[in-house]
């Protein structure tokens, strides 16, 4: 369906108001182009600079709040920048029609160019009891501490891998948490090995060291080379957690109110999949990402993907990526001259390159080895939406399903409301290990709208009963 002509068409629509989306929006808004910035949160900043809800008093102050405030101030300076908070995009069509909804209404826009900057979701590797209420994501815990400013429970266990363990511990301590233990998949030696990479960003490395110092001074136990074996609720506010050492197999029993587990982040590719862009598999960048030009344009013309959604590198490179996509658009529309374009491009590319070594270090310390998927018990639920167990995935693979979409039609794995965001990668690893093929050879789940569940009356929007073409009943 083409634009009937009454719906506003923007020069550029940006989806996601985290660092990358905001950077692109501001750079583009400085021209006379009409810009649309859509975001599902009530304030800009994305998840990394997540704002505290307006009604809630800040108990702890962190530097993320200052950055968020700067974004918020900047975004309202431009009359040609239309910012639409609280709207979740559920569909982008081939003609760049964008459909979004909030709690009680729906909106449709058209755009000549689209920049997707919708970030990531979390990688959680299943274990016995991972579906138990009280077990949440590790990145989820940082969002709670930063934005909600309360502890979901006083006694906290943090598990998984990467720098989020330290960041989350730091926020939790500021809120007065009692951290029972930090369960790190990686060993101390593995951390030391990435130190040369971390030196490429001394500021962030220093942050990490300060967090670690605080953890050591508070005498918080760190269980290195260890994973969660099981979580089990023993009473209304207590979980019993079994921690297993990867090599010695020694089990430690701990108790907490909440368990936060995460093994890094996965780029969100819902929209690039929906438009059938080409995708490539890059483990260091978080798995499947759209194939991109150096200016972050996908294989679909005028459709860009930036920020961590184009490969996990962190918030600062995300900002630069947003600027690069915006610069390319400005150049293509003759808003920036060739010489200026070359000069700015060089600066931005240098900034990205500087971060590549650092990001590689973070990826190395965050990425789980694929044999971790062997440790999942066959009875464990992998697809939470449709209750598909590991055994069902293995059985389907042994029966001949080699592709994740085949697995989906045979077992319903990935068919539920989360669209396979939670289980897709895990299912791929299990299939690959069962069939003895590469993980990327199992493919990725086909993109389907709605990418977020949308109430039917909102999906229908303003389309009325009267608009239905009624056909005369055939004479009997």
């Amino acid at each position, binding site marked *: 369906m083409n634009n009937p002509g009454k719906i506003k068409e923007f020069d550029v629509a940006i989806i996601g108001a985290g660092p990358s989306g905001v950077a692109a929006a501001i750079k583009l808004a400085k021209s006379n182009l009409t810009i649309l910035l859509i975001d*599902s949160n*009530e304030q800009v900043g994305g*998840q990394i600079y997540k704002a505290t*809800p*307006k*009604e*809630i*008093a800040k108990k702890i102050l962190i530097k993320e709040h200052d950055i968020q405030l700067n974004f918020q101030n900047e975004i309202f300076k431009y009359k040609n920048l239309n910012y639409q908070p609280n709207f*979740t995009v559920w569909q982008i069509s081939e003609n760049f029609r964008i459909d979004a909804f909030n*709690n009680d209404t729906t909106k449709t826009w058209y755009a000549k160019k689209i920049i997707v900057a919708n970030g990531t*979701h*979390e990688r959680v590797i299943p274990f016995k009891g991972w*579906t*138990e*209420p*009280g*077990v*949440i*994501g590790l*990145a*989820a815990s940082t*969002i*709670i501490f930063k*934005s*909600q400013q*309360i502890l*979901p*429970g006083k006694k906290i266990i943090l598990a998984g891998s990467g720098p989020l363990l330290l960041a989350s511990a730091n926020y939790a301590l500021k809120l007065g948490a009692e951290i029972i233990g930090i369960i790190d998949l990686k060993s101390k030696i593995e951390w030391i090995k990435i130190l040369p990479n971390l030196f490429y960003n001394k500021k962030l490395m220093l942050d990490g060291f300060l967090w670690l110092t605080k953890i050591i001074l508070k005498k918080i136990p760190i269980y290195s080379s260890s994973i969660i074996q099981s979580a089990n*609720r023993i009473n*209304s*506010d207590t979980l019993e957690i079994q921690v297993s050492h990867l090599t010695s197999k020694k089990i430690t029993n701990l108790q907490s109110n*909440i368990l936060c587990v995460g093994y890094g982040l996965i780029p*969100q590719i819902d929209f690039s999949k929906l438009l059938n862009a080409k995708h490539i598999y890059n483990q260091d960048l978080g798995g499947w990402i759209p194939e991109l030009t150096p200016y972050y344009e996908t294989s679909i013309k005028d459709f860009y993907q930036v920020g961590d959604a184009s490969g996990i590198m962190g918030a600062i490179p995300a900002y630069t990526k947003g600027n690069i996509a915006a610069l390319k658009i400005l150049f293509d529309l003759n808003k920036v001259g060739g010489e200026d374009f070359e000069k700015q491009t060089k600066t931005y590319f240098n900034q990205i390159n500087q971060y590549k070594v650092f990001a590689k270090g973070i990826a190395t310390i965050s990425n789980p080895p694929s044999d971790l998927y062997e440790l999942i018990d066959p009875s464990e*639920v992998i697809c*939470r*939406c*449709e*209750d598909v167990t590991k055994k069902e995935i293995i059985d389907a693979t042994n029966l001949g399903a080699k592709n994740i979409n085949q697995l989906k039609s045979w077992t319903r794995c990935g068919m*539920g*409301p*989360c669209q396979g*965001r*939670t289980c897709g990668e895990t299912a791929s690893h299990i299939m690959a290990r069962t069939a003895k093929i590469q993980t990327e050879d199992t493919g990725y789940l086909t993109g389907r709208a709605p990418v*977020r*569940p949308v*109430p039917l009356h909102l999906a229908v929007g303003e389309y009325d009963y009267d608009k239905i073409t009624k056909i005369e009943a055939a004479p009997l």
Partner: protein
Amino acid sequence: MNKNVKIIINNEVYEATEGRSVALELFSKNFHHLRNSPKLKQKRGFFCMIGSCQECLITIDDKKMLACTTKIKEGMKIELYE
């Protein structure tokens, strides 16, 4: 200053902080179990906090909504376990 408002959870009145995530407010009141999974009827609670995983879908004011991304408002009516 945080403002306390009255909300209704499963027909009982509770005090809650205006603006806070419904998921967090429920968790702090020991409502960990928000819904059951479709086939195995496992207990499920909030999980991702960003509206991705859909685990915290509950009934708020007679509408299906995600507890994690919905804010507490005065008089809000919440129903759990269906």
